């Protein structure tokens, strides 16, 4: 067949007899080659950008790494920029707490909703839900922050915290050590709401790659839909689900404004979900104004950004590779 040969070397295609092209073949081919090169160069921009961001942050945070040891920075709990003390542990702990709670709260509804949409819902329900999720994903983070301050924080302060501490207060995790609702749990709830549409969308995409025949194989043996989901579909897409959750977690890790507005911003290591915390992104955002006025402060803040970047890069690379593998198979 001639088609594959043409496909691999399109430059040799010839105009059909009697239908002359406006440009000569060699000119067209030259244009094509130049364009290919320009295109290729532009494609390098994203790659260059990732490298540039990493290098810039590394270089700018180097000064503090020269004067403080890594151990000192990562295990130190005292944050006194004026005294030259930069202990990142409270901020790392804050980030960890808020993100963990957000992910824990988000995962069950995400799985259930995605399964519902893909396995149970009628097309009309799906068509309603998709724009809804779009909208939820499109709401700016500062608006989530406003909502959190108006609804979640008061709810935590007036209802959830008193109830929890009177029933489960003996568990340190649920002890209320401060009177406000600006807390880890408020941040976690906001994060959960923010990453829910994101995770649902990915899991839904993965579920679409599960062949209908596989469902029928299980249903045909007399399994219920739920048995089919838990025994067949879930194990089949587990790697994808984990990747989706990791991506959601990395979204949560970097989320700044919404969390900053509800989490209290107290540099301490939280011990209860009702404690205030101070995650890394909030640290950067709150202090950018003074960062140039104190020695090493800018390096410290940019180190915070660098740490964040490294964690998120790792998460993203692994999860995206897994997902590319799963979703790439679609339609082939």
């Amino acid at each position, binding site marked *: 067949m001639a088609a594959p040969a043409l496909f691999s070397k399109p430059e040799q295609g010839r105009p059909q007899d009697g239908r002359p092209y406006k440009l000569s073949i060699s000119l067209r081919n030259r244009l094509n080659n130049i364009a290919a090169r320009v295109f290729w160069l532009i494609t390098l921009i994203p790659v260059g950008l990732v490298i540039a961001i990493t290098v810039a942050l590394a270089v700018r945070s180097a000064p503090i790494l020269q004067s403080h040891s890594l151990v000192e920075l990562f295990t130190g709990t005292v944050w006194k920029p004026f005294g030259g003390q930069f202990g990142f542990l409270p901020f790392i702990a804050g980030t960890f707490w808020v993100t963990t709670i957000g992910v824990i709260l988000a995962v069950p509804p995400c799985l259930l909703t995605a399964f519902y949409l893909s396995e149970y819902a009628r097309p009309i329900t799906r068509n309603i839900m998709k724009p809804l999720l779009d909208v939820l994903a499109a709401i700016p983070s500062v608006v989530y922050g406003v909502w959190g301050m108006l609804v979640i924080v008061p709810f935590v302060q007036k209802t959830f915290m008193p109830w929890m501490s009177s029933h489960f207060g003996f568990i340190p995790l649920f002890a209320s050590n401060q009177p406000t609702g600006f807390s880890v749990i408020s941040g976690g709830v906001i994060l959960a709401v923010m990453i829910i549409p994101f995770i649902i969308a990915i899991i839904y995409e993965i579920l679409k790659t599960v062949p209908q025949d596989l469902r029928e194989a299980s249903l*045909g043996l007399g399994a219920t839909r739920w048995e089919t989901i838990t025994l067949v579909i879930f194990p089949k897409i587990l790697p994808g689900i984990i990747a989706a959750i990791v991506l959601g977690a990395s979204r949560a890790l970097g989320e700044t404004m919404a969390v900053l507005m509800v989490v209290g911003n107290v540099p301490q290591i939280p011990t209860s979900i009702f404690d205030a915390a101070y995650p890394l992104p909030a640290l950067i955002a709150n202090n950018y104004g003074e960062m140039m006025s104190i020695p090493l402060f800018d390096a410290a803040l940019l180190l915070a950004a660098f740490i964040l970047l490294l964690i998120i890069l790792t998460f993203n690379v692994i999860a995206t590779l897994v997902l590319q593998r799963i979703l790439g198979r679609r339609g082939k």
Partner: protein
Amino acid sequence: MQPHIQVKNLNVHYGRTHVLKDINLEILPQQITVIMGPSGCGKTTLLKTLNRFIELVDGTRVTGQILLDGQDIYSNDVDVTEVRKRIGLLAQRPQPLPMSIAANVAYGMQIHRMKSNRQEVRKSVQHYLEVAGLWEEVSHRLNDPATSLSTGQQQRLCLARGLAIEPEIILGDEPTSALDPISSQHIEKRLLTLKDTYTTIIVTHTLRQAKRLADQVIFMYLGEVIEAGPADAVFNHPKVERTQQYLAGLF
């Protein structure tokens, strides 16, 4: 002989298309009934109405009755999983579940809690793998993933898996169309040996396979049953012109 399945005034609509038109049939027990006809004639749809798979497709409407031992399987108080337990399906392409070979066979037994202990499950797994003619080939690697088998082996695994839930009826939707000739022969041989125990309904698009397997034949065209009856009669003395044309290979 009492019919095992009776289909009465069955109509299936998909959206605005009338897919099956006024189907009336009787399926006899312990025989192989072959449904044949040109592609798009509704034979697979008919098969899918028998185990209520048709309900999985959005926008289908089923009217009429399908009686299994006199009980309408579309009646509201009927449990669809029980219907599908009694009517096993062998699909066009083998579709192993994402688990080991042994777990595939045990899957149905476990969801229906048919066996009380592991020992029994293991025994049944061996039994049905033997019935499907696969035991010799896989006995030493029962815990390998089912996807590691060849397509032909996978189809026999699916047969074993279907038989393990002890159905009364086996549906086969062109069960050999994805297989090589030798594997097809394997499956056909199994179906012939199994027909004394089970009521078997096979959809096929190859006339030769129909002739090899059929005790009863249903010939469908454009959503209607044109002719149905014992294989001999339909193959050798077709009454309807359409059937004659089809058998002569005119379409």
